[in-house]
């Protein structure tokens, strides 16, 4: 199972100027099916308010992939088409559903969360 330090991630994300800019006015829940577990990220007024296991089905944006795929996605230098959400959805079979308009509008903010998560996991 992917080991994610939720408290550290919240600190990193909310302290990141690029995330702060990209996430302005964002209110959403993003649910990640990680294969062997779940992770629900709650964004309130442009900040990451909470991260932890939860009910992905009620999240406004949902992404699903196997644990193996998420591990590849979170590598410092992933294999081709695991380098971002769009390529992973288009070419590696990651499932995406929910509010696609919000996902697109806040693509930069969510991408930044993954970049910081990648950085933390490969430190």
């Amino acid at each position, binding site marked *: 199972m992917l080991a994610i330090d939720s408290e550290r991630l919240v600190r990193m994300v909310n302290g990141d100027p690029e995330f702060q800019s*990209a996430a302005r006015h964002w209110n959403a829940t993003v649910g990640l099916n990680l294969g062997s577990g779940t992770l629900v990220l709650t964004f309130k007024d442009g900040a990451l308010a909470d991260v932890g296991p939860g009910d992905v089905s009620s999240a406004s944006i949902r992404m699903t992939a196997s644990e193996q795929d998420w591990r590849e996605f979170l590598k*410092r*230098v*992933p294999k*081709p*088409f695991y*380098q*971002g*959400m*769009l*390529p992973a959805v*288009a*070419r590696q079979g990651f499932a995406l559903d929910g509010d*696609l*308009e919000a996902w*697109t*509008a*806040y*693509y*930069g903010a969510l*991408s930044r969360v993954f970049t910081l998560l990648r950085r933390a996991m490969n430190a």
Partner: protein
Amino acid sequence: MTRHDNAQGRYLYLTVAGVEYRVYYEETGRGIPVLLQHTAGVDGRQWRHLLEDEEITANFRLIAYDLPYHGKSLPPVSEEWWAQDYRLTQSFLTDFILGLSKALELDRPVFLGVSLGGYIATDLALHHPEAFRAIIGCEASNDLHGLDSPFFHHPRISDGAKSAQMYDAMGPESPEACKRESTWLFAQAAPPVMLGDLYYVCVEHDLTGKAEKIRTGGTPLYLFNGEYDWVMPPSHGKELADRIKGPKFKMMPALGHFPMIENPSEFRKHILPVLDEIKALGT
């Protein structure tokens, strides 16, 4: 002492399909002319690193232009363009490129294009090979149907979001500063331009049943796809190349969809040998 780039920009007036456009272009170097076509939703600034490559400009005259509605090439003053949907067509793009070549009095230039430029490279190879001494298409494929998402021009989605998506089309190990410059350019296009450009790319361009008719005997065709280009994976470029008689295909390791700007020092390693080959042809 003031340091200048070598490239110099100017405008010319070009009439395409009865409409006059004020077209901006930058050029540098001397020798064999090379027309540089930018990708969808951006402008000729994507080529700025190549324009400063003195190993290339010693023998090649590089010309990077902004298509109308892109960069410094404003919409035409004679048209009520604001009352129409912006839409790039293959016919316009072809006439524009051939017209620009004629206006600049170029003698069978080399054509080098990426993405949108790679698609039109293959369409030019099919329909107008005689106009060019060689054609280089990067990030090309048979077609790209279905990727013209309406979210590319949506009142609730910013141009910053669009550029964030473009970031993920580049290689993870390309220099961060270069990737950020690339996304900066995407954020600067007028809102309808990306989706309008994708009309040609995603609707019109389709080499099904046509690629086999491309003849490379008189005009060599080179095709390149970046390893991390999820839009146009190398497998798609190779599949296209396999259906054409005589092109040279190569996958560019570590690079993505915008090789000339995301990682110029790696891109030149692929382009330099091709330009040397073209120079050696001497035609």
